[in-house]
């Protein structure tokens, strides 16, 4: 499935770029998973040492094995949910608008969009040693005070993204201004149509 299938494109709208969080961000859940996966081994080593895992009561023995299985399945699905959450968050920038698609847990999804003409300012920030080395950070798109700002977190090349959004916003404003300028040409036709209508109604 391509990005274009994630939203309905307006006529003449073109996807300029899409943004996901930097892959390094996913290292956190990987490390958590590895630590959680090592806990039963650590516990076995501490409690039983090198001796085989045999408990005195058969119920305890079987129960412990089933419990360990449940534990591993739980952390495995937790890890996969983290991946789904990471992978399904996406920001799409077209030549007309910005879309922020966010996966909220397993059963929640929010989609917000902002017309590029309403972009007032764009702020990009790289903070910390690792983000500076790997060139990722936050891009905040500021709109009118009454509206919520758009924030793209942990995206690659934030300064370049800011520059590109500003360029696209300027282009979109120019395009919109051109459309407004073209409108008066249509006005005489509209006025003639109005006069005809008044004549038809016997008012002219």
């Amino acid at each position, binding site marked *: *499935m391509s*990005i274009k*299938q*994630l939203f309905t494109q307006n006529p003449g709208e073109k996807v300029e770029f899409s943004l996901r969080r930097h892959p390094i961000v996913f290292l956190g859940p990987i490390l958590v998973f590895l630590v959680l996966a090592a806990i039963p081994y650590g516990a076995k080593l501490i409690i039983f040492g090198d001796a085989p895992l045999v408990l005195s009561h*058969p*119920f305890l023995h*079987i*129960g412990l*094995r*089933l419990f*360990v*299985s*449940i534990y*591993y*399945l*739980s952390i*495995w*699905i937790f890890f*996969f*949910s983290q*991946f*789904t959450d990471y*992978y*399904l968050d*996406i920001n799409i920038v077209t030549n007309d608008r910005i879309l922020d*698609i966010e*996966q909220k847990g*397993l*059963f929640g*999804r929010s989609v917000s969009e902002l017309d590029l003409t309403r972009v007032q300012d764009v702020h990009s920030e790289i903070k910390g040693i690792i983000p500076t080395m790997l060139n990722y950070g936050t891009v905040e798109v500021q709109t009118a005070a009454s509206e919520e700002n758009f924030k793209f977190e942990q995206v690659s090349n934030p300064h370049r993204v800011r520059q590109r959004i500003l360029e696209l916003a300027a282009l979109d404003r120019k395009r919109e201004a051109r459309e407004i300028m073209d409108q008066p040409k249509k006005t005489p036709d509209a006025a003639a149509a109005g006069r005809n209508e008044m004549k038809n109604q016997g008012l002219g």
Partner: protein
Amino acid sequence: MISLPPIVLLIPYALFALGFTFFAFANVISLGKYGARNTIGLMASFVFICGAAIIVFLTWQSVAAVDWFTPVPLASVPAPSF
């Protein structure tokens, strides 16, 4: 003395397995439905299913020798003294 067959331990395990299957399906469907019907999405789903299958297989191997139906005494209950 109370005795129970070890198969009773499989009841909570089966309940957990049901929940796990539900969440696993929800995850895979979310990935497919919301834009990850591509190599990465398919690969992630494949790895997840393989991982889950390996865990279940190892569990089954570790409890393969268990006689699930023979009742096992839980603990000796002392006879009431009068």
